[in-house]
């Protein structure tokens, strides 16, 4: 299946779906040290739901972190 994380394409040949937790490991260097929040296809996914929410073919994941703002 093919998914996007923050606009970057990832191809996973063997899976039909993976959890948000697993998807995050594709993208992060040190996820445990980062402050971030997640949206799947434009809908918020809370941390408590990372293991049970599934990412499927064609899905788009946004991983956001704090920045300065006005």
């Amino acid at each position, binding site marked *: 299946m093919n998914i996007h994380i923050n606009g970057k394409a990832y191809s996973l040949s063997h899976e039909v779906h993976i959890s948000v937790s697993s998807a995050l490991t594709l993208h992060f260097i040190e996820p445990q040290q980062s402050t971030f*929040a997640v949206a799947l296809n434009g809908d918020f996914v809370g941390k408590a739901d990372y293991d049970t929410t599934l990412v499927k073919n064609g899905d788009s994941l946004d991983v956001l972190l704090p920045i300065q703002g006005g």
Partner: protein
Amino acid sequence: MMALNIYGHQLDSRLLIGSALYPSPEVMKQAILASGSQVVTLSLKRQNPAEQSGQQIWRYIQEVVTEVNGHLLPNTAGCKTAKEAVTLAKMSREIFKTNWLKLEVIGDDYNLQPDPIELLNAAEQLIKDGFKVLPYCTDDLVLCQRLYDLGCQVIMPWASPIGTGKGLMNPYNLETIRLRLPDATLILDAGIGKPSDACLAMEMGYDGILLNSAVALADNPILMAKAFSHALEAGEQAYVAGVMQQRQTAHPSTPTLDTPFWHQNS
């Protein structure tokens, strides 16, 4: 100065300040401290594993907010629909552990003017979900009234488009909003360029000012932050003191009784 009321929280400073555009994180921190502000705005962006600067900025913001016993005010910058804003708000709440939200829904890319329809829609959903919404909006009286009626206790009309520094484009509109919404906490947001702009809004009876570029883009942001702090204090004191009525004709300040001799024959 009297306390600023944000959804029941009493704050000593009436200045809310942004964390963007400073020459360095350290200058940002020192400028925020110099401003006396206890509310710092910030945002979210896509995570890039190769880029660690975001985490560094976040640490600086946390440090300064802790030091002033202040509050974070996440924004929804970049959102163009109510749905986007609601999603970003929920992500912000999880990260920043606050239900305060500067709600921005932009309707036009040229002047970053808020979309009033999407803004109302988003505000309604977010209030139902427990957020304390501080909507950034245009200086439209009816829009401000509708936001207040929805439950936005704080309303933040613009002075002029974000980052322009043009000051108060339409003082009449802003004065009318103050007059018609006497119980709302009104914070002028965006477009402030000079301390005198902020002072003018405070003289109108505005409760506070939210700014970023005017301090961050100054030659000396730390000194400018202090200047804004003084301007807000001056403007608030002038409003409380009561500004004199303008008069159409001149009135001598010096008593005219017993005018000196050189006017006797004129």
